[in-house]
Structure formats: C-alpha cells, structure tokens
C-alpha cells in the first residue's frame, strides 16, 4: 500500500516536470490538415494573377514561380512574409490562417511594376467564388 502511494507520488511529480516538455513538443507539431495550393507567377516583373483570392481562416500554400531571369522578392508587411525567388526559380510560402480582408504584396526588386493583392474571402464567399471559377 505504502509502495503504491510512493509510486503515485513519484508519477505526479514526474508528470509536473513533463508538462513544459510536452508543451514544447505540442508547439512544434506540424499542421496536418491538407493545405490548398495557389500559384503565382512573376513574368516581365509583374505578378500574375495580380489579384489572388484565397479562403480566410485556413493556412494556404503559395507557389511562386519566377519566369524572369532576374531575382525577385515577394514582400508583404500585412502578411508578414518576405521571400527571395531566384531568376527562373520557385519558392513556397505558407500564409494564414487569415482574417477576411485584403493583403497587399509587392516585388521588392521591381516595386513600381510588381504589385498585387491577396484577398481572403469568408467561407460563404469563397464557396461562391470557387463555384464560379472552377480550377
């Protein structure tokens, strides 16, 4: 009986120690939900499309393909992202989950021409948009 009590006490003590470690592990767990992928091209120092619609409230993957021979940097303060894409190269950006709204982005190497906006749509509008623009 006494041994059992001691064992339980030790277990409680160890479980307390394990809490911060478990918290650290949880913090690093990858997001397992499948992410929607959206393609963005850079050609002649322009983003194509320059208006990109994505669903709000979920993480999305942006595949940025640079067709120009010179490098470009995707930059957006509102999305908190900056990423250099080498000439004729590609890069993957992960954004969100986003609140519904507009998020400006631009190309830092050619800020006058390379400009775009990402629009995060609430669920209902996103479903309507998807129905009207089959991928």
């Amino acid at each position: 009986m006494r041994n059992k009590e001691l064992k339980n006490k030790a277990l409680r003590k160890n479980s307390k120690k394990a809490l911060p470690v478990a918290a650290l592990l949880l913090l690093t767990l990858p997001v397992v939900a499948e992410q929607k992928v959206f393609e963005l091209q850079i050609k002649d120092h322009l983003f194509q499309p320059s208006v990109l619609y994505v669903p709000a409230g979920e993480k999305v993957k942006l595949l940025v393909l640079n067709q120009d021979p010179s490098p470009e940097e995707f930059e957006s303060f509102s999305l908190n992202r900056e990423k250099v894409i080498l000439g004729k190269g590609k890069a993957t950006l992960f954004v969100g989950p986003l609140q519904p709204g507009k998020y400006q982005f631009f190309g830092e190497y050619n800020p006058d021409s390379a400009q775009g906006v990402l629009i995060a749509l609430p669920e209902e509008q996103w479903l309507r948009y998807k129905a009207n623009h089959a991928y």
Partner: protein
Amino acid sequence: MKLYSKKAVVKALCFVCLCSSASALADGRVVDKVYHPYVQPLEREFEYRYFYQRQADHPDNNTMGQKLGYGFSVTERAALEIYVIADRISPEDYKLTGYELELRWMLTEQGQYSADWGMLFELERQNNQDNYEFTTGLLMEKEFGPTSLTLNALAVYEWGQTLDAEWEGEFRAQYRYRWLPAVQPAIELYAGENYKGAGPSLMGVHKFDKQKQLKWELAVIVAIDNDTVDRTLRFALEYEF
C-alpha cells in the same frame, strides 16, 4: 472567427519558462540581438550594434560595447556574418577586443509549421588573450495575429588562457507588435550569467530603393534581480543591400 488560440500562447509561455529555468550563467554580454530564424537568398548587409550599461555601484558600470559586422547568405538557408568587436570596461579605455564569426541556419520555412525554427552558431576570439567563446542554440518565432514571439535558447562554451573552460546558458525573448513597418514596439527578456533583465524596445525598417533598406532597434533593459546591472541600453542598425 478564432484564428489563433489562447492555448498556443500558453504553450509558448511554457517554452519561455522551460528555457529560462534551464538557463545557466554566461560571462559574456547577455543583452544582444534577439535573432529571428530566417535567412534570405542573396542577403547582404552591414550591421552595427551598441550597448551601454549603467549603475553607479556595480562592477559593470559604464561598460560600453560596439560590434561592426558584414554578413551575406551562403546558401538559400544559411548566412555568415563576420564582426569586429570593441569594448570599454571601466576603468580601462576603449579598445578592439575581438572578432566573431556567426552562422545562421534556417531550419523551416516561415509559416510551414506551428512555429518557425532556426539555429545559430557563433565563434568569438578575444584579442591578445587567446580566449574563445562558442555559442550555439535554437531560434524560434511564432506569429499570434499581428504580433510575433521570438525566442533564442543558447548554450555557450568558453575556454582560453584567462577563462575556466565551462558550459553556460543564455536565453533571449522578444514579443513584438507589427504595428507599422517603421515602428514596431516590443518587450524583451534576457537571462544569463549574473544577468536577468527585461524592458521595452522599439524597432522598424525604412526602405530606400529596391532591396536597399535600413533596420533599426533600440531597447532599454532594466534589472529584475539584485545581481544585474540596473540599466542596459541596446541599439542596432542593419543596412541590407
């Protein structure tokens, strides 16, 4: 719609507690840059860092340090930086005290996982004393809506002619509100040998032309225990081109 949960904030704070409780003690300066875990290809920069400590009756009173560095990315995920270090430790005069080589390594893409991770490796040589300091550790950043939490958990190994060889620990944290590109207020926390401090900081970025930009940081860190020097001022400038 709830986009980031309170649970995630609690998890991050647990990580802060875990790291600060594991902190041992370091001889070098504890208040320094809080590193972000990101590297960009084609990154090139000049960097200047300054710190000043003040407390009339403290051995570190009137200590001043400066660092001048040049950095560049060597791969899409790794960047090197070389620094020259000058210190003034009262009552001595200002002098060139050492050199440092730093490697930052981005482990995960920003936003790919629930937190972004990187690693830091630094080797510092103290001039004329044949003393060395090797620092390595994890860099972490996590977004909470318009704010970002950055944590650095570092292990430091010191050895040399006038130093006892020993392992130490350092911890740095920064919680930043991304208000405007030019003005981003934050709070910072530092823990290391004979140092535990926290305080407000302000940082921002000013863009000039194309990829040329100037980043700035200013922080006033105050002691949170009796061993720590009362006030430390930290200032940094980074010119990226």
